């Protein structure tokens, strides 16, 4: 009996792995860096880093849907840059609110195009979006002639830098996005379709789910959240630079989602895990930067974190899988 007791404990540990390991990891990270660096433990730094978290965490929502659906979108970094430069260049012409609306709609449209390509051409999303990644980036270069767009509009800047009752607006926006996404995923038929398609595509087709439409909507959602993230980050930086903006963003976002416990290949995922993972990533980068670690090590650190996360999720599956046998 002792053996089965033990295996049950391991199984429980494995299934709850993401829900408690990430917050613990986050706390450990903050404690360690607070001891190492006086600059890290200031309220100013902690809050402004949380603002950068929102940039990754919002993009991670769309990617989480996409990965649960069994796909990938690696064009997000370039898409972010393209919609930021086009949207912000509209600001002097059409004003703040319409420009933000335009950015969101345009980003959703680009996501829609990705979705149509993936579903109608039946090419793995990874390759399609790899091509789109370069097309978007070169359009961003061509549109701006490789010069940054400076942003002076108050409304646009407010989204990234403004505060409501002392809390940065970007953080409120991020939490709002998460609540909406959580409702969409857990309380609507659409969320169940996404998971069904990701778990078993053929079964989803047989049970009457319109797979192509689900996928196209998911890619459109990716675009929408990228639009929000692009406004946040370009407002935060005060400019939209076609070359710098969103470099390596796809990588950070996928890392956040996978580290958050959503399994590659589709199926049920963990939205809040993606949120905590975004915090871990941004505070790790911030901490490494403030403790004067060479910035190149950050590449290495985040790459290792990603491989570690995926490998851990394999271990988790082996443990859970053995129980079923």
């Amino acid at each position: 009996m002792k053996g089965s007791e033990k295996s049950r404990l391991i199984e429980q540990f494995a299934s709850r792995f993401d829900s408690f390991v990430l917050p613990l990891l986050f706390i450990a990270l903050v404690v360690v860096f607070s001891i190492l660096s006086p600059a890290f433990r200031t309220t100013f730094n902690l809050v402004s880093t949380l603002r950068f978290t929102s940039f990754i965490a919002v993009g991670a929502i769309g990617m989480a849907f996409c990965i649960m659906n069994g796909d990938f979108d690696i064009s997000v970094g370039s898409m972010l840059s393209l919609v930021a430069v086009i949207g912000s260049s509209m600001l002097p012409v059409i004003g703040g609110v319409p420009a933000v609306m335009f950015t969101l709609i345009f980003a959703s449209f680009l996501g829609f195009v990705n979705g149509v390509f993936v579903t109608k051409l039946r090419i793995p999303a990874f390759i399609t979006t790899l091509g789109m990644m370069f097309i978007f980036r070169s359009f961003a270069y061509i549109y701006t002639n490789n010069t940054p767009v400076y942003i002076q509009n108050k409304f646009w800047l407010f989204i990234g830098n403004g505060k409501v009752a002392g809390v940065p607006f970007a953080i409120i926006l991020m939490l709002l996005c998460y609540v909406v996404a959580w409702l969409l995923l857990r309380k609507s038929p659409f969320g169940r379709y996404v998971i069904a398609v990701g778990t078993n595509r053929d079964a989803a087709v047989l049970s009457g789910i319109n797979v192509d439409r689900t996928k196209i909507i998911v890619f459109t959602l990716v675009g929408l959240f990228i639009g929000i993230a692009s406004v946040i980050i370009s407002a935060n930086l005060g400019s939209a630079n076609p070359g710098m903006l969103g470099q390596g963003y796809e990588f950070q976002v996928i890392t956040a989602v996978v580290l958050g416990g959503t399994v590659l290949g589709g199926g049920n995922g963990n939205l809040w895990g993606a949120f905590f993972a975004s915090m871990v990533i941004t505070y790790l980068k911030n901490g490494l930067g403030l403790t004067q670690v060479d910035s190149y090590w950050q590449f290495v650190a985040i790459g290792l974190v990603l491989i570690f996360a995926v490998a851990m999720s394999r271990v988790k599956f082996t443990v859970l899988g053995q129980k079923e046998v």
Partner: protein
Amino acid sequence: MVKFLKLYEKIGIFIFLVAGAIFLSFASPHFLQGDTLFNVVAQGTYGAIVGFGMTLAITSGGFDLSVGAVMALTSVFLSILIPFIGIPLAILVSLIVASFVGFINGLIITKLKVNPLITTLAMMTIIRGVALIVAGGRQIVIHQKVFMELGTGKTLGIPNPIYIMVILFVIFYFILYHTPFGRHISAVGSNESAARISGLNVDLIKIAVFVLVSFTAGVAGTIRTSQTLIGIPTMAPGFVLVAITVTILGGTSLAGGRGNLWGTLFAGIFISMIYYGLNIIGVQIFYQMLSVGIVLILALFIDGIRNRYLETLKAKGLKV
């Protein structure tokens, strides 16, 4: 129609190549001169060489996104090692380092069972970071002018990189089509579990494939470094797109199992012709990236239509 599609898969890119060449010979009076032709082919060598490796990887059902970063790492190692141990030994060590990256890729993919896309995406960042750390974030100038011969010199009137490409082509052609190992690669790509059940050492085959991909990236990095005489840690940022485009354009099936090395060779030269053509028109460098992206999507588009057509035929019960 099926026959046409089969034929297209084999020689489609060759038709593109000839059509492009005819167009360019009208558009530019200099195109048909020997030097220009050789230059176009020589510029196509990087894409083709890494394409050979990528063809093996895609045939085995994998991918490698880390090739650009491996090129950069090779470049950095060359520039640091050449002053100390001489050119031949430096090239040897750099190629071993490059292949070792592939070995790590293979280990992570087969032993930790991490998806190849994610592994090589993460390794792309890690290796780029390592290249920057080793080089201290700077570009390192190589003062040994002799090294330049490798990438820019000519033997019997033909640029040296073309010889390297042809030698590698022959080797990879032999490996893929005339050895048991090559057949095993195709077997793993078309049905991994069947390959495993029939007693193939799937893990070993995959690791070997990833070592070969990184090796080709190392060779391409060496050629490029010798042409500029600078070790560049940020070398070839979007190169993986070119390598994958070349492979798919050449007719290697994304589904795995069927590699087309002739196609890869011609597609490498074709991409280089597009660059040359764009240079004639005098467009900016951004458009080159755009054109490669569009060519990739176009190749996927044709691939998708072909698959759909074959699927409907299969549904009708025809043998394809």
